[in-house]
């Protein structure tokens, strides 16, 4: 009996040190620190940058249309005379927000449904996992395109498009997560400490939220980074196709749509190369950071 009594306390202590230890090891990884710094910079660029810019994001200047990069407009101006650098910043706000929000949403949905499926098993499990199977079997880009087209048909106001894009991306993102979490819960459920929780008569809710899900946090953190990267990529692809966030709201993806115009594409690369590079570098940084976090939390995977 005494071993069972001591176990939770010992585990709590150990798990605390695992987190600080992991963080310490993460700081030793130079590429991870570099990526993290880059991401922080990107956030500052997007959210603080517009405040420092002398131009408004939507301020038009008809005397300076389609101007190449210069000392005053570092990345030139677009066809309405708007400063491209400032637009890049405000577009970053939307792109990063959509990426993060869709990550949180699909994480909550996936973890919750996965945990419920794994914990209760039986018919609940089959129902949830069959839905996940169905959603996973439809390739995600065609599915996103269809849903986007459907919503365009319903004439959703453009201001709300950003929330809808978040929901769409989470809708195709949660099944993979649910499957991962369910697998973890299935093996955790069989462990002794859950038997102890059963004996203590803890409620299902308490077992799921206090004893099962916290043990999947390392996995969740890694998946969260990957999901954010996927969210940003998905948003940019949809917006590039004109099915995501649409003008006048700028995102990195829909800024590139200007490349569909042959003249702008050939003669004015400052209009579409910067947003493309912003997407690329941000997603690389997130992926590198996610990989480093995985190395730290799961030492078995180190160096792979």
């Amino acid at each position: 009996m005494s071993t069972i009594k001591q176990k939770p306390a010992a585990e709590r202590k150990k798990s605390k040190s695992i987190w600080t230890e992991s963080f310490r090891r993460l700081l030793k990884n130079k590429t991870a620190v570099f990526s993290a710094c880059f991401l922080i910079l990107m956030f500052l660029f997007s959210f603080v940058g517009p405040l420092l810019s002398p131009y408004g994001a939507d301020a038009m200047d008809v005397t300076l249309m389609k101007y190449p990069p210069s000392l005053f407009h570092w990345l030139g101006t677009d066809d309405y005379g708007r400063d491209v650098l400032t637009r890049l910043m405000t577009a970053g706000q939307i792109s990063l927000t959509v990426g993060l929000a869709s990550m949180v949403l699909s994480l909550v949905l996936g973890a919750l449904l996965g945990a419920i499926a794994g914990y209760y098993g039986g018919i609940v499990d089959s129902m949830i996992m069959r839905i996940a199977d169905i959603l996973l079997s439809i390739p995600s880009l065609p599915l996103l395109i269809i849903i986007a087209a459907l919503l365009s048909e319903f004439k959703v106001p453009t201001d709300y498009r950003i929330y809808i894009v978040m929901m769409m991306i989470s809708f195709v993102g949660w099944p993979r997560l649910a499957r991962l979490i369910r697998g973890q819960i299935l093996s955790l459920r069989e462990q002794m400490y859950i038997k102890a929780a059963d004996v203590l008569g803890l409620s299902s809710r308490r077992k799921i939220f206090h004893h099962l899900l916290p043990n999947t946090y390392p996995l969740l953190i890694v998946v969260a980074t990957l999901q954010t990267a996927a969210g940003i990529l998905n948003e940019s692809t949809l917006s590039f196709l004109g099915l995501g966030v649409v003008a006048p709201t700028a995102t990195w993806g829909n800024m590139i749509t200007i490349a569909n115009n042959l003249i702008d594409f050939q003669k004015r690369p400052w209009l579409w190369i910067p947003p493309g590079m912003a997407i690329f570098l941000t997603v690389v940084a997130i992926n590198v950071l996610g990989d480093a976090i995985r190395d730290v939390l799961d030492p078995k995977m180190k160096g792979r």
Partner: protein
Amino acid sequence: MRFIRDSGMPAENKRGVPVKKYVLKRFLQMIPILLGISLLIFFLFAMMPGDYFSSNRKLTPERLNELRALYGLNKPVIERYFIWLKNAFHGDFGFSLQHMLPVTTLINRYIWNSFIISFVALFFTWALALVIGVYSATKQYSFFDKLVTLGVFASLSVPSFFIGLMMIKFFGVDLHILPIGGMLDTGSNSVGFAYLLEVLRHMIMPVAILTILSVGSLTRYFRTGMLDVLRMDFIRTARAKGLKERTVIFRHALRNALLPAITLLAFELPGLFSGAIITEQIFGWPGIGKIQLDALNARDYPVLMTLTMFLSFLTIFGNFLADVMYAAADPRIRIAKKE
């Protein structure tokens, strides 16, 4: 490892059944999912408020109703689903009003254009990933290995449309060495060898992009697999026997590292026919991906719906094939049953 776990079925179902029975069971499991997908997709499309006729403003309301009745668009959704299902079993997937062709004919016409670039890209992806992955695994932590790791991340993170545009800009517009789109030059009527050469020239960039996009994850897969095997005792034994390093790598390690990869090939199967929506769109390549977007813009829903279902069916079939190959190739799955 992600690929293997991705098999559409919970992992525990894979264990402990002889191959034949396993295949049958796995096959039967596909049916409810296929039906579920067809229901979901059908209702998604049924929810669309417009159809091909309503986007044509020249039609009078009477004529519109007449046409919609003619094509059965005014019946209740459930009834339409079962009519669709019955026709689908007879191989009739509807009629594309945009192209004035049966959908199956249309798909058959374009699918091979998609297949050819996907197939060539698949070949290059596997060849490159195998060589780079194995080589960087044998030189872990070297400069080359670090470069490969960086390249893998770049490949995983680059938006397909952006790299496509950059390549067109660089090779097509600035350097003028490659055509910027399409499958043939405009107004071309070359035949025979010249025709082949022309198509090849147009293929270079789409194939390069598809390769760049998929080579990253596969390289990583081979590198990880190789690193796993190289740590095993039998490799140490082989080295201790005094075998040449080349023999150890290629005879002993590579063969074992390749075994799990055969299931990956099964996952690649759907990709061969599914077309690449973004790449085909950017290069104007007349494939499945492009007609999919065209169908979307023209509200040609029978085409879009059939394509989406077709892609999903291919994915499920690829999963099925991968599971079966996995069970056939890895005797541990069969042995597990006897315990």
